[in-house]
């Protein structure tokens, strides 16, 4: 009996959103929330206009500009013409199609994946999409959230559905207790190091186990955020009391009796006893150390205590060539200690680590210390709400006193679409999600790590083990 077969969290959320299944298995999947930003939407709105179509559910859609807006002097407008045109185009489109929009100067503005949960727009059990691969972030709420291309953005705007094939189930269970000095970022980097950048392709990953349960919502979002770096379009964490406590009081979340009804349903979402996963990976949290990437994809990651790997030790010829290319691009010497790598720039922010908890972690290290000479260290809050909260706690003062820059919210140097870019050869300790060649600026060299580790790099001037800073 199909109805009595134990189901996973993903199965339950998927099943609840199937409008129709086509003969070949493709499903028309209903979408509860659609987040829209300036870079991947202009061509979608243009498509609607050309076809004479409307936005089917403006009340299930929210737009915000985040990718290419400047993180300083914003009140004076956007200097770069092409960026300005994209933002103006978004503003014209949301006005024409009646889509709710958080303007650039409003406190609700921020990185689309920060503001969804923060505003209570992203809720458990929902299907959530956005024209951005890091939409997987929202899976931390216990929702099915994934990135889509611009044609699919247009499809959702027009129909509130997507044509999708059901993904496979993958379970990543993190047992035990995370050691002191380690964070959600170290968990997810460890996972990607273990399963590889394509380890989750075709799957939705459910993160489970005591070490995941113990994370706060910010940490869970960091983990789900990087699901896509393991190839999985979506990562999910079953909703629990931590989730419900987070949702309570959020501006767009249900209130009172409606919230209690919602929670009743949300409690039914965790996987049934005996639910089957196509793949299972188990990791012992006790073995996790603060992690740093050394190469040009997130799988090229080592504990901070390790050395740069030697490509000649790799038996496969194609892989050996790829590793050698990484060593060359990153300007490294095999066998070099990671902690000997001097850095030029520190970037703390992004949809991976731009939440208030991340700013607090950075400020805790920065307090009473100074950014090392020659290092540029920037902190970019993920939203206006994060910025205001940090300022209310005096974190901006601590960071500024230590010599960090305190900037306005946006995607910033995660992908260098705005003026925040690395110059060729610069080495950056970054809390973002991708260390691809040229990601943070042409020729730039990115080392991914946690906010505390990034702050430690800022104050020492090199990659440093945060556990030794005390």
């Amino acid at each position, binding site marked *: 009996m199909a109805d009595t077969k134990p189901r996973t969290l993903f199965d339950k959320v998927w099943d609840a959103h199937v*409008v129709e299944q086509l*003969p070949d298995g493709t499903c028309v999947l209903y979408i509860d929330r659609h987040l829209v930003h300036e870079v991947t939407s202009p*061509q979608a709105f243009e498509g609607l206009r050309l076809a004479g*179509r409307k936005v089917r559910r403006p009340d299930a859609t929210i737009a915000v500009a985040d990718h290419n807006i400047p993180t300083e002097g914003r009140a004076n407008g956007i200097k770069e013409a092409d960026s300005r045109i994209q933002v103006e185009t978004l503003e014209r489109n949301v006005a024409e199609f009646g889509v709710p929009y958080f303007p650039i100067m409003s406190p609700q503005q921020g990185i689309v994946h920060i503001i969804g949960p923060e505003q209570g*727009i992203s809720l458990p059990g929902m299907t959530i999409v956005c024209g951005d691969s890091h939409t997987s972030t929202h899976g931390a709420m216990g929702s099915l959230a994934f990135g889509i291309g611009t044609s699919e953005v247009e499809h959702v705007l027009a*129909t509130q*559905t997507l044509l999708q094939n059901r993904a496979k189930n993958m379970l990543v269970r993190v047992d035990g207790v995370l050691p002191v000095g380690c964070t959600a970022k170290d968990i997810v980097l460890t996972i990607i190091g273990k399963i590889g950048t394509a380890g989750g392709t075709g799957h939705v990953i459910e993160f489970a186990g005591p070490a995941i349960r113990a994370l706060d919502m910010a940490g869970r979002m960091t983990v789900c955020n990087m699901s896509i770096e393991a190839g999985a379009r979506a990562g999910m964490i079953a909703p629990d009391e931590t989730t419900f406590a987070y949702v309570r009081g959020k501006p767009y979340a249900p209130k009172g009796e*409606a919230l209690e*009804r919602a929670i009743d349903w949300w409690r039914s979402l965790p996987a049934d006893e005996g639910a089957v996963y196509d793949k299972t990976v188990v990791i012992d949290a006790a073995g996790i150390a603060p992690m740093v990437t050394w190469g040009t994809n997130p799988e090229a990651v080592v504990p901070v205590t390790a050395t740069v790997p030697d490509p000649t030790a790799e038996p496969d010829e194609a892989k050996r060539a790829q590793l050698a290319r990484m060593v060359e691009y990153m300007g490294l010497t095999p066998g070099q200690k990671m902690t000997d790598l001097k850095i030029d720039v520190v970037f703390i922010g992004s949809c991976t680590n731009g939440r208030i908890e991340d700013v607090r972690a950075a400020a805790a290290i920065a307090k009473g210390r100074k950014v090392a000479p020659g290092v540029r260290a920037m902190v970019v809050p993920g939203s206006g709400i994060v910025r205001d909260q940090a300022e209310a706690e005096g974190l901006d003062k601590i960071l500024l006193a230590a010599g960090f820059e305190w900037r306005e919210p946006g995607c910033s140097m995660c992908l260098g679409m705005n003026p925040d870019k690395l110059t060729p050869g610069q080495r950056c300790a970054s809390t973002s999600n*991708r260390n691809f060649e040229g990601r943070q600026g042409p020729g730039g060299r990115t080392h991914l790590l946690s906010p505390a580790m990034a702050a430690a790099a800022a104050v020492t001037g090199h990659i440093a083990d945060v556990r030794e800073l005390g």
Partner: protein
Amino acid sequence: MDKFTTLTGVAAPLPMANVDTDKIIPARFLKTIKRTGLGVHLFDTLRFDADGKERPEFVLNQGPYRKAEILIAHENFGCGSSREHAPWALLDFGIRCVIAPDFADIFHNNTYKNGILPIRLPRAVCDQLMEDARQGDNARLTIDLEEQVVVRPNGEKIKFEIDAFRKHLLLNGLDDIGQTLQHAPKIDSYEARQTQEKSWMPGISV
């Protein structure tokens, strides 16, 4: 969207794994509000040096491959971001088919929406086709979508798999939205049911 039925053309060998979307089209070129015109920036960092001069060693800067319509690569092609600018740039350059052992999911979806056919074949077969491709103009490949085969220059046919629905859309050049709107009554009734069952779910207004 243009139909995809058969294609005979020069295939460019790109023996790299994990070709990410930042490599296919760096973020600085995403600041456009159009779908066209991105071909000149395809593989920008691999194709051009810091001064904008062509790197002669890169395959798409070499003789016949300037007109390549097929690209052959290694594992996990298109990993990274959801930017549809990646298939737009490929298409604008003239690439209508990418052959690789496997693709990243979002990129894979995005190709179909633009009339580009992604073909998954085992690594050993990709390497064989790459050898064919290295002969440039003298070794065109033919892709026959109806028959689901890649025809090598020596006439050998290699079968590939594709979802029936996606094949139907590509062969007929159909747009997804039109297809989905045929199910509009079902969407209406789903919405009506959801309004009842999930009445706790608030709408967004600002």
